């Protein structure tokens, strides 16, 4: 009882700091900045945090924490704006959002999709914060069970769901696209023995950068598609309300708990991250939904699966970072670096040195999520007007933004060329009716699967005696077998209909 009371008193101490006027203002400004950064294709939360850390250096630590977390939350969600309105995910973690968000926009429900996406993000963050504040000690010990072998299996599981991400085409195409992405992810000097793989030009030594590749696949491919359309889609009618109706709201809420748990859990695993969480949540949601045929064609449920999970990942990533000083994602790693700059040392000693800090983080994230929802109410209507502009007129602006985004990720012109190459590849694949989602998943997970597999091979002792690994093997086998059956079945159906 005394322990619970102590935790409540720590929560009260943290609340006193978080709800201080300046801190609230800073969170609001930071969330807005994060949303803008996230919405611009190529600019990610990691990049924003990397650039802004030094700017927060002169601020008191509580204000710096408020600022960094605000940017973090805003940037993770910001990607949904361009994903929904332009079919170009602003950040890699919004790639799954585009699958349903863009079709919703095409149906004239862009405003509802934007607000629904932000609502899902907000609720995912808040629920995940509650989990973080209650279950941190338990979850951090589970997270440590994910060694290299388990990470490899998790990545393989991600790749096995590629067939499931095929919309309006054979699952076989999904698998092929997935392995194409997997292959591309292996290009470059591998980090274990430093051997070059498919490095035909020196700029490829550091591999194919994910961000320019994604901007190309989605952004440039979209531009090329629009330019060759005689009558590209345009929304001329009044957009009406941005608030979802009862049925849409119910669809948004359906995956809330499951996606939050997936997001929070994936976030807690060191080395995973928001993009993996979004894809796994989307795939799981699609498999278990009663309306799975609507996924990929404009489903509010599908939209919520991705957006809830990627934001729920943020508090999840804080769990190992705060208790073990092990960041769950790249953005959490940047936050850890920022805390170090301000003399805050996360890790096992945190509960002794700054016992209320975990609550400060949790409450700040909640405030940031609520602010984000408020901003979405204000910003959505004007932003939706973008959908009413003739898309051929929009394209030059989009091309400029994509070039800036690709260049900004490493300030390297080669990345712009890379983006253009992937743009052409994406365009051709679209024409051949190959889904881009599995290709993205392969790109994201290929490197993780490769390095973790080879690292686990160098470990002494059998990996087959590890319980979490064994459970994952069963999950992977199930996914593989059910995926294969589905692929064979659908290929037969396709052949039969072709004969007819």
């Amino acid at each position, binding site marked *: 009882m005394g322990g619970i009371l102590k935790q409540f008193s720590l929560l009260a101490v943290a609340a006193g700091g978080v709800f201080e006027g300046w801190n609230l*203002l800073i969170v609001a400004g930071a969330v807005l900045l994060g949303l803008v950064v996230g919405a611009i294709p190529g600019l990610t939360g990691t990049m924003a945090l990397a650039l802004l850390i*030094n700017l927060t250096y002169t601020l008191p630590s509580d204000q710096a924490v408020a600022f960094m977390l605000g940017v973090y939350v805003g940037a993770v969600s910001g990607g949904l704006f361009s994903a929904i309105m332009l079919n170009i995910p602003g950040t890699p973690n919004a790639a799954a959002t585009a699958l349903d968000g863009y079709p919703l926009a095409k149906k004239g429900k862009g405003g509802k999709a934007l607000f629904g996406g932000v609502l899902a993000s907000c609720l995912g963050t808040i629920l995940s914060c509650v989990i973080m504040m209650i279950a941190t000690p338990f979850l951090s010990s589970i997270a440590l069970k994910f060694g290299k072998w388990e990470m490899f299996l998790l990545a393989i599981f991600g790749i096995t769901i590629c067939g499931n991400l095929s919309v309006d085409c054979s699952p076989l195409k999904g698998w092929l696209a997935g392995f194409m992405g997997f292959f591309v992810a292996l290009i470059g*000097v591998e980090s274990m*023995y430093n051997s070059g793989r498919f490095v035909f030009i020196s700029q490829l030594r*550091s591999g194919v950068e994910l961000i320019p590749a994604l901007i190309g696949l989605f952004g440039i491919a979209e531009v090329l598609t629009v330019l060759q359309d005689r009558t590209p889609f345009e929304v001329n009618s009044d957009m009406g309300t941005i608030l979802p109706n009862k049925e849409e709201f119910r669809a948004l809420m359906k995956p809330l708990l499951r996606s939050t748990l997936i997001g929070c859990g994936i976030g807690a695993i060191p080395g995973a991250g928001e993009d993996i969480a979004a894809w796994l949540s989307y795939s799981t949601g699609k498999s278990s939904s009663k309306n799975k045929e609507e996924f990929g064609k404009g489903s509010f449920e599908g939209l919520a699966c991705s957006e809830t999970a990627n934001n729920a990942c943020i508090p999840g990533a804080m769990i190992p970072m705060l208790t073990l000083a092990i960041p769950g994602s790249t953005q959490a*790693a940047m936050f850890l670096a920022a805390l170090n700059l301000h*003399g805050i040392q996360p*890790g096992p000693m945190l509960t002794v040195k700054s016992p209320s800090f975990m609550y400060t983080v949790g409450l700040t994230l909640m405030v940031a999520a609520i602010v984000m929802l408020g901003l979405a109410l204000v910003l959505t209507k004007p932003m939706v007007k973008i959908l009413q502009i003739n898309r051929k007129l929009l394209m030059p602006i989009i091309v400029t933004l994509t070039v800036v985004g690709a260049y900004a990720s490493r300030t390297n012109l080669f990345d712009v060329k890379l983006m253009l190459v992937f743009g052409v590849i994406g365009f051709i694949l679209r024409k051949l009716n190959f889904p881009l989602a599995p290709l993205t998943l392969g790109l994201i997970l290929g490197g993780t699967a490769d390095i973790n597999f080879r690292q686990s091979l160098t470990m002494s002792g059998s990996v087959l005696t590890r319980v979490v690994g064994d459970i994952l093997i069963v999950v992977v086998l199930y996914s593989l077998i059910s995926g294969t059956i589905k692929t064979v079945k659908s290929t037969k159906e396709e052949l039969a209909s072709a004969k007819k």
Partner: protein
Amino acid sequence: MKKLVAMAMGLALVFTGSTAAMAAVFGNGTPTVYIGYGAGGGTDTAVRPVVAEMANYLGENINCVNMEGANSAVACDYVLEQPHDGYSMFATGTGGFSSYPIYNYSESSWQDWISFHPYSGPAVVFANKDSGVATTEDLFNYLAEGNSFGIGAYGNGPHTQFEAICAAKGVAAPAYSVFGSCADAAVGCIAGDVMVGAGSLSSVIDYLNGDMLVPIFVTCADPFEFTGIGVTTPSVTTEVEGTENIPNLNETWPIMIPRDTPQEIVDALVEAFNAAIETDAVKDFAAEKGFNIIGLTGEEADKFMSYSISGYSWTLFNAGLGEGNPADYGIPTLEEYDWETVKTTCEAYQ
């Protein structure tokens, strides 16, 4: 309100990439430090506080961009390709930089750079708490059974130093498990992926102070006290005979600019660097992370770099790692090393 306005202005500067026209040193844009390793990693964490204090001193923003790949050689070559005007700087670890000739990552050497070394840091060898390994003897017995040893990367400071320690002890180097970074090697050890490993002290000190790993020995000249657990860990020099030279190979994390950068920029950066390492913030950070502030610049820094390159590249070569031969690059062994001779290879000293 002033703070908000200041922050808004700062953000505007970052995103527009322009600095005020009145800027004293960098009047034509925002300088950028390209950090050769990933965001939040050991080098990134080590470099940022110094860069932040340098920016404070200059009254101008300095961006930090992470450009990882090939043990930091990607960033190294990229900065060398940019105009040598001081707007593009490079940050790495001396361990990684010294391994370039062995792995043929880059043709760049210390002669190409002016470097500022804020601090040096030893490596620490650690064990999983359930491993039963608690002493140096336990460690070598455990490795003799063929068990693997976790490291961050081939050619980094802890790996090269452990190779030299094995050579001094007269035992074969262990089978390595490479984790990508020192902090990851420590996490792998906590998670039980490996039961023993080594990493830079700064990257793993929190896990050791947090009683999540057992420290076996450190590679500095003196014993090191882990205040969080109240344990004093011995120096390798008292644990393994013939390792007196190992502390000289402790890694540093220098900020570097091409050697032909205009002198007024170099002078301003040296001044800012010297001011930065005198600040309480950098001193406190160094103390928390187990760094020794050394503040090497000018000829001292060049001497340190060339000595490290000799030590690291020959240790790796003798261990049969990599493809390059240091002799082909005119790199002397540590036994042959003489600064007066070495410095004649650099145009700046002609």
